[in-house]
């Protein structure tokens, strides 16, 4: 079992003929993801890496019966690409693009939520992977292994760093979900945690948060009600207030988003908060042993 994506995922790549979209399409195909179509307006009827390209998501869905889409479209056009996929009734849409204007995302996130027919993951995320089954996004597939750990994270490379340590420690993953580093996200910690709680394969959850916003505090309320153990890590603990640390969402402002409140909320809810990344596999192993 896995969450959100598996062998039945039939993927469209929006922006397949662009540099990033093209490169990662090849990487996803190599991993075994079932990429059934690409979309680039004006390039319908052509092929990329053996994948048929269409002018619109609607055309692509009609021809291939796709049930997921990943977006590599540049920032100025990416929110529109999200809405196009939603309008075509694609149930799962993952936006990798970084740098989408905030105004465009306010509109997109609210419409997607109100209509309730599409789950949006991202934007500004690394994607999602269920090892050996399906990879949607830009992460290096070979560092992941199948196993009992569900992982959800706001950061890309920090996830690779931690997954690498988990894998080296013999702790495989059920699904790893990159929710993204933006202030406005389609899917937040609170949306992913219940999926792991009800997933049979997942035995422990690793939550990787960072400064900015209060999604970790909201997640803590949910962790309180979960039966599965949660190990958490917060990065940016020494970042000064008012500075945006790379991710658009990683900023302490108006007294909100500091690390102390996140760590104490998580600990208060019973999560084990690691002080360093190397501690994570140790805490996960302990949590699994206590559960067995």
């Amino acid at each position, binding site marked *: 079992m896995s969450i959100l994506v598996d062998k039945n995922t039939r993927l469209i790549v929006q922006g397949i003929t662009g540099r990033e979209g093209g490169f990662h399409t090849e990487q996803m195909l190599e991993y075994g993801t079932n990429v059934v179509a690409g979309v680039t307006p004006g390039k319908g009827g052509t092929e990329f890496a053996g994948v048929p390209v269409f002018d619109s998501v609607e055309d692509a869905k009609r021809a291939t019966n796709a049930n997921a889409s990943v977006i590599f479209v540049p920032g100025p056009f990416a929110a529109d690409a999200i809405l196009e996929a939603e309008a075509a009734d694609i149930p799962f849409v993952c936006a990798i693009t970084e740098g989408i204007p905030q105004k465009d995302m306010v509109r997109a*996130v609210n419409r997607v939520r109100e209509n309730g027919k599409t789950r949006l993951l991202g934007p500004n995320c690394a994607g999602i992977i269920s090892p050996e089954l399906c990879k949607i996004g830009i992460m290096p597939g070979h560092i992941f292994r199948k196993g009992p750990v569900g992982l959800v994270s706001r950061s890309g490379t*920090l996830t690779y*760093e931690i997954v690498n340590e988990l894998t080296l420690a013999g702790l495989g993953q059920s699904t790893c979900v990159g929710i993204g*580093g933006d202030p406005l996200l389609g899917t937040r910690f609170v949306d992913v945690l219940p999926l792991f709680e009800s997933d049979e394969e997942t035995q422990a959850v690793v939550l990787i948060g960072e400064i900015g916003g209060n999604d970790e505090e909201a997640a803590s309320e949910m962790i309180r009600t979960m039966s599965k153990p949660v190990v958490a890590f917060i990065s*940016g603990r020494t970042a*000064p207030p008012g500075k945006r640390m*790379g991710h658009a969402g990683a900023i302490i402002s108006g007294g909100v988003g500091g690390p102390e409140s996140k760590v104490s909320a998580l600990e208060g809810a019973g999560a084990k908060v690691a002080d*360093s990344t190397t501690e994570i596999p140790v805490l996960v192993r302990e949590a699994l042993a206590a559960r067995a």
Partner: protein
Amino acid sequence: MKLQEYQAKELLEKFRVPVPAGSVATNGGEAREIAERLGGRVVVKAQVLMGGRGKAGGVKVFDDAEQASVFAADLIGKRLVSVQNPQGMVVEKVLVSERIEIEKEFYSAILLDRAAQRDTIMVSAKGGMDIEEVAASEPEAIVRLAVDSKWGLCDYEIRAALVAAKINPRAHRQMVPMIHALYSAYKESDATLLEINPCALTKDGKVVAADAKVIIDDNALFRHPDYAALGSESAEDPIEAEAVARGIAYVRLDGEIGVIGNGAGLVMLTLDEIAKTGKKAANFLDVGGGAQADRVRSCVELIFMDPRVKGLLINIFGGITRGDEVAKGVVEALQDLKVQVPVVVRVEGTNAEEARSILATANLTPAKTVQEAAEKIASLVGS
């Protein structure tokens, strides 16, 4: 990007938000003309994006145009230094505007409420003071109104917010259209923050935006070529300005260890690990994907523009880009630039072993973990 006060007020005027009459001047003569037109009773404000501008001597009120122009002429070209910005900034422009007689000061702002995922109007009767302090000591004094993203803002909602915030009723009739206008300015300019502090009720019963802070979404500058062209004028730090020009995600911090990493989360982790050794990082820098030699070279150059940097820590997770390729790029860049200070490089991920042997032959200090890298650079930099 943050707008200068005069740019923010020009934006507001375009949307019919009342602001004190005035204009921007680049020399004493222009300042005199503006001051005379305004009848001599004016305030002259240095247009620099730094905190503590008033205490640094950048703001002064006058009763006649002559004195105002002498002050403006003296101020332009001068470097203002404040506690918040010890390096200081050179004044290129001053804003000359009418003095207003303030009876009451309010606060109004528009920004994104991340949790609600909506634009939010904030109003408070506690104007003219640090709003973060108000938020901490009297959170109930700030009233929030979330804007329905589909249907927009209604008058009755604004009126209810003004009542709840205990804003003087004499100001309500003017503030309702003003808040509509502020929201239009926020939306049309792709602002991520529009703050009026203070929003003033004058003795003659007018409501005006006495000061304005506007931040425009960098990701939306393609829709605003006028702002995009301002470029470095909007930078608060010269190295950060250079980073924007080079397209590098860089934030200046106040330590002595330069940091390069790939991915925001990994760089934040690196800063945290440096802090654990008792040292401080000089910067945040995300090199982005790939980490090819020319990109690394550009980042290293940028970091050494800060004279306080005594050592460099490079932390790269090689994912799809293999670690040995990253290591080659790092070695090439550092040799090209003849970097003299200690450098610790940690490359993990794909082909990490090969990467470490490339680094070792190039006389760089390799490290296996982030923790080890932080400890090594801290001890090499010494006390």
